[in-house]
């Protein structure tokens, strides 16, 4: 009996101890908890944080990264719900800003906000307050294999509109076997973000004047360039490795494109790392970006925008907010920070005062060149209703690709979903 008692007490006290230890310990110095989404630069970012800690001994930076295939938005919500609020976190655009408004500090007086490129703060400014600082710029388009193009005698510079693109694709298709290609394209229909967000953006952005806020405020969507949209989608699908609905990102980029089994994929400058991991030489010398032609609008443009912004938690301690701002300023405006942003992060900077000739990878260089010439379409998909791009449009496109819906049905269904959401 006595032993039973002791065991019971032990079990009880152990479980209480486990609960209690969760909420003790306190530190003197300022700790910045960073919760960010970009897996691609996780290691480099952690290294920079270490260097910053060394220079500023009172600051400790903890970085948590959730991204890649994971759902950052969901993780962020759970993080906040758990009471363990980060000091610095990421927000995507107007919808995120509206959702997190109470928890975003005003960053207008920071050096980084002043250095940010024109228009890059559109999506995160409310009543003259800047609530986020851009990460970087990214751009996407049709990434092509230079070697294959050369062998097939197709001049990439000649592709300036839909007709020339179609002609090039047909020519490549006719020489498929001698070029060692499985198909011309790899269209990842399984990834609803590729079709529903990225591809659609090229054709919907013009309708919203390339401004994410216009899209965010719009009660309706018209698909003004819907026919052009259908043409590019059909072209990609008809000349793609089949079946497209179960083709995913890793198959598209790693298996098919990096191993040179397809000639063109619709992706952005972020795939450079994946391709370099498989074939460094090919990544450095063999790839470039072609425009996504929007018939009736602009033929030779690529969509360039800000993927994510840094937000600072306004509910954190004053000292933490101050240090957070200092850290972000240092990262984007100090000489040392600039160096890392360009060389280690391999970012296309969204700030003034960078030596753009130092951009290292060919895709980023191409994107930057397009941006310089003004041949860009804005990123407005952050202004779509929540879930609309992937869950409505992307899914409807899957239906269309499986021949279970016509294009008209896709347009009608998604138009309605947009209106219901914005009522």
């Amino acid at each position, binding site marked *: *009996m006595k032993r*039973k*008692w002791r*065991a*019971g*007490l032990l*079990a*009880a006290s*152990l*479980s209480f101890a486990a609960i209690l230890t969760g909420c003790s310990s306190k530190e003197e110095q300022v700790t910045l908890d960073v919760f960010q989404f970009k897996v691609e630069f996780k290691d480099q970012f952690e290294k920079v944080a270490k260097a910053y800690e060394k220079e500023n001994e009172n600051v400790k930076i903890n970085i948590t990264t959730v991204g890649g295939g994971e*759902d950052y*938005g*969901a993780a962020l*919500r759970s993080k*906040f*719900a758990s009471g363990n609020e980060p000091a610095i976190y990421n927000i995507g655009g107007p919808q995120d800003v509206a*959702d*997190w408004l*109470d*928890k975003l500090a005003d960053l207008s007086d920071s050096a980084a906000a002043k250095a940010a490129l024109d228009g890059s703060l559109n999506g995160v400014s409310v009543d003259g307050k800047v609530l986020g600082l851009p990460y970087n710029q990214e751009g996407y388009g049709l990434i092509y294999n230079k070697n294959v193009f050369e062998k097939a005698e197709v001049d990439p510079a000649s592709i300036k509109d839909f007709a020339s693109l179609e002609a090039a694709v047909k020519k490549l298709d006719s020489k498929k076997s001698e070029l060692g290609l499985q198909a011309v394209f790899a269209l990842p*229909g*399984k990834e609803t973000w590729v079709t529903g967000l990225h591809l659609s953006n090229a054709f919907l952005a013009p309708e919203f004047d390339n401004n994410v806020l216009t899209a965010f405020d719009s009660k309706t969507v018209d698909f003004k360039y819907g026919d052009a949209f259908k043409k590019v989608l059909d072209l990609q699908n008809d000349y793609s490795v*089949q*079946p497209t*609905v*179960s083709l995913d990102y890793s198959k598209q980029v790693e298996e098919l494109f990096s191993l040179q089994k397809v000639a063109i994929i619709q992706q952005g400058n972020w795939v450079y790392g994946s391709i370099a991991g498989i074939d460094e030489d090919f990544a450095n010398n063999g790839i470039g970006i072609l425009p996504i032609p929007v018939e009736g609008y602009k033929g030779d443009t690529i969509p360039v925008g800000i993927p994510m912004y840094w937000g600072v938690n306004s509910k954190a301690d004053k000292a933490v907010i101050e240090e957070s701002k200092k850290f972000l300023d240092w990262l984007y405006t100090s000489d040392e920070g600039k160096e890392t942003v360009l060389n280690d992060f391999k970012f296309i900077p969204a700030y003034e005062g960078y030596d753009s000739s130092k951009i290292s990878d060919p895709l980023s260089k191409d994107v930057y060149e397009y941006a310089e010439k003004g041949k860009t379409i804005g990123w407005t998909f952050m202004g779509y209703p*929540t*879930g609309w791009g*992937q*869950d409505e449009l992307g*899914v*409807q496109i*899957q*239906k269309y*690709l*499986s021949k*279970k819906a016509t294009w008209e049905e896709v347009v009608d269904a998604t138009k309605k979903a947009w209106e219901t959401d914005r009522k």
Partner: protein
Amino acid sequence: MRTRDLSYWVFLMPVLAALTLVVIAPLFLGIYYSFTDWNGIQTKGFVGFDNYIALFKDERFLNSLWFTTKFSVVSVILINLIGLSLALLVTAKLKTNKVLRTIFFMPNLIGGLILGFIWQFIFTKAFAGFGSIVGIESLQGWLSTTSTGFWGLVILMSWQMSGYIMVIYIAYLEGVSKELLEAAEIDGANAFQRFRSVIFPLVAPAFTVSMFLTLSNTFKLYDQNLSLTGGGPYNSTQMVAMEIFNTAFGRYDMAYAQAKAVIFFLIVAVVALVQVYINKKREVEM
């Protein structure tokens, strides 16, 4: 039982505390949230039964519920059939008994997510490769249509769970007394009659347990669904758990997703209780 004994409560307390913290409290919190318009960050106010009314008109939710039901019915039958057959096989007098048991049980040791990816590879690569060698066109593009996605999930689930269910049947099969079987044999019953009239009623409790396990597991399936088909194509192979998750974390309709979860909980509870009740009635006591 001396339930009033203090030591009884001391022993029970850690478990009760844990249960309250992680099961009972969240359940009530969840029911509370399902009546609000909580978006994951803030609650603006009560909306009464709006979420519940909307849910019965939500085609997506109803489709996923129907898909889950179909999947569960087929899987429960298949898994129990295969599990019982395997159990009968390895309780027969075979030299390879122990090895076979291990092999059959093995799939259950692999996590659902990984299993999904393994089978995705088999369906999309191995099937396609085999199909192109043999010349069967229909083996191409598995998982890219609704019906192949459905059967893909059924195959995956049966493969994983049969071995586990087998173990339960083995336990009961080995409990059937030899005397009874011998007596039946002396009375002139053949193998089939012995199985039908002696073994089957005696292992009836195993059916109750296994069917409950398979039913609740297949209804709540999430990770295999996520890694194998991801709900695609066009959400047609999306099961309820995944649909709820996507409502919550894809569209941030947290309260609405919570309402769906409450309904889902009720459905699973009712179905499982009814099944156990019916099965219990068929059990015979020795």
